[in-house]
């Protein structure tokens, strides 16, 4: 029997028992749909995270205070924050591979406005912060060198803070009070949305770091120093340069570990994507189990079908079918059932992924390769789980099979 005859025979048998065929396919259908939806959610999350990491700014290097406790020994004076404005100044001056450096002096306080109050993070930054983090100004202007030098009482509001404190009004030119200090709003930032972790990036007030350090009381610390490398392939060089400069400045001996951490986008991206990759893998593993269960369902029904059709097998054998013909017939039938189930499941999955995206607002991404793989995999499931029933059918003795009631 040639492939076409086998396929026609298989399709005939599938069509002749529509109810049984659909029930048989159901498991694979659900399995494939589940795999596609899960992978779509996972890949969508991954894409969203990558997009957000790109939003952090290009070529960015993040220096944070802290001791790497890998060796289990922590340095002496490290309960104190280890980064200073002077560190940032030095880096700006000495690090050749960095084109921009900005300290980030962090504090939190209530923004008291004309109509409403709102608690927000206050970041004291350098004018280059906008370039490093890729912030755009929606209205007004950003902080400039004169603001830094003059410790001017000015600030730029994130979109969330602006709307919370000023509603529909234009905040530019108005005053807010931070820890009783009146500060003029000189600009409003374009909205960025949430971070990968779900934090609102627009819930922020940016002010000159000199102003924050000298004019705002309260607990404050240099949370980060941000730098920008001249190009992505300068990132490695920039990292080692930063380490060299800071270690020397902090007077660390060779045996002492760094009292700061240097990371760039790649590490951030790696952590984030490896997390989502784990999630994607986990989700698709769970979904694959349902595909496996679908395969077992096919095996189950096919075994029953072999018993039911024992006489048919005997007839075919008497009329000239070889064992191989019978084997191929049942194998192709299992493949057609699972492949068809996979195809329908793929349709359901693509629709389902879209539906999930609509309902939850998550980004779901269905790639053609996922669909093709899922369908091929389901046909493979048919071969694997159709094998046992097909072997059983082919192994039947023709006389016994003919006598079967």
């Amino acid at each position, binding site marked *: *029997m040639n492939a076409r*005859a086998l396929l026609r*025979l298989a399709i005939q048998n599938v069509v*002749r028992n529509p109810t049984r065929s659909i029930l048989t396919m159901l498991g694979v259908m659900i399995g494939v749909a589940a795999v596609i939806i899960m992978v779509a959610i996972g890949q969508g999350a991954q894409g969203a995270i990558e997009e957000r990491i790109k939003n952090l700014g290009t070529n960015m290097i993040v220096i944070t205070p802290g001791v790497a406790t890998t060796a289990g020994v922590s340095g002496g004076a490290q309960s104190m924050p280890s980064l200073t404005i002077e560190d940032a100044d030095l880096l700006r001056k000495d690090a050749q591979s960095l084109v921009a450096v900005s300290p980030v002096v962090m504090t939190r306080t209530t923004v008291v406005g004309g109509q409403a109050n709102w608690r927000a993070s206050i970041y004291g930054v350098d004018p280059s912060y906008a370039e490093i983090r890729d912030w755009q100004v929606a209205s007004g202007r950003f902080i400039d060198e004169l603001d830094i030098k003059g410790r001017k009482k000015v600030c730029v509001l994130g979109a969330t803070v602006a709307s919370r404190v000023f509603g529909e009004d234009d905040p530019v030119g108005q005053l807010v009070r931070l820890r009783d200090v009146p500060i003029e709003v000189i600009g409003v930032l374009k909205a960025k949305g949430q971070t990968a972790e779900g934090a609102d990036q627009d819930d922020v007030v940016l002010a000159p770091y000199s102003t924050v350090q000298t004019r705002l009381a309260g607990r404050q610390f240099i949370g980060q120093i941000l730098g920008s490398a001249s190009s992505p392939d300068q990132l490695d060089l920039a990292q080692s340069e930063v380490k060299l400069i800071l270690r020397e400045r902090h007077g660390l001996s060779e045996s002492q570990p760094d009292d700061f951490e240097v990371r760039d986008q790649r590490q951030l991206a790696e952590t984030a994507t490896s997390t989502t990759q784990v999630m994607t893998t986990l989700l698709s593993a769970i979904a694959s189990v349902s595909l496996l269960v679908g395969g077992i369902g096919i095996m189950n029904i096919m075994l029953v079908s072999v018993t039911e059709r024992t*006489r*048919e097998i*005997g*007839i*075919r*054998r*008497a*009329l*000239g*079918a*070889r*064992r*191989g*013909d019978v084997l191929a017939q049942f194998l192709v039938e299992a493949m057609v059932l699972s492949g068809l189930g996979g195809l329908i499941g793929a349709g359901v999955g693509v629709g389902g992924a879209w539906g999930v995206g609509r309902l939850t607002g998550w980004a779901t991404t269905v790639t053609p390769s996922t669909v093709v793989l899922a369908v091929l995999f389901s046909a493979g499931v048919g071969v694997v789980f159709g094998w046992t029933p097909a072997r059983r059918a082919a192994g039947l003795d*023709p*006389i016994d099979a*003919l006598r079967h009631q």
Partner: protein
Amino acid sequence: MVGSAAPVVEVKNLTREYLLGAERVLALRGVSLSVSAGEMVAIMGASGSGKSTLMNVLGCLDRPSAGEYLLGGVAVGPLDDDALADIRGERLGFVFQGFNLLPRTTAVENVALPMLYDRQGRFADPTARAIAALQRVGLGERLNHQPNELSGGQQQRVAIARAIVTEPRLLLADEPTGNLDSRTTVEIMALFQALNDDGVTLMIVTHEDEVAAFCKRAITLKDGQIVGDVPIQQRRAVVSTPGAAP
């Protein structure tokens, strides 16, 4: 051609024993016979005498425990399973007591079935051949009926059409009229006679003398041995042609 000179069937000293647990059942004990082209042989004998066992061996569905079987001059014994399947498809036709048609499958599809397994490309248009075979057995009007829409006699006609569609050298029928009433039995036997007149060699198992009377020769089995092998003197015949039968 070697085949035309040699007998269609030649068996020598055929035995077939079954093992039922520790017990050995000898279903055939030393059967020798020869059937030439154009013969129409009735295989008779009481229930359990070994008729079906003999037919299974002759039909290459079963292998003898000992003895030799030449089909058209070719020794069947050394052939493997696939070769036996090919022989069944190419040279043999089967008609069973229980019709053995595929359910939910039209008459034409049932008749075309053996051509599906043809490996030599003998049949250019299986459907046309199936239709012609059905017309030959008088079922030209029932081409697209499924078995459950046909009477017992009609189903057996479909089975006969299926058996002859590949133009086999030998047609084997194991109690083909066992499930039919006497009038239908006569019609089916008349059809076999007509096929025999067209040159088909037939071996028909029956335990009824009236059925055997349609044949040209009667072989009688008892306890797995041939106890009688005689030509039939007064052969029964039916006047009406099979094509005209309802």
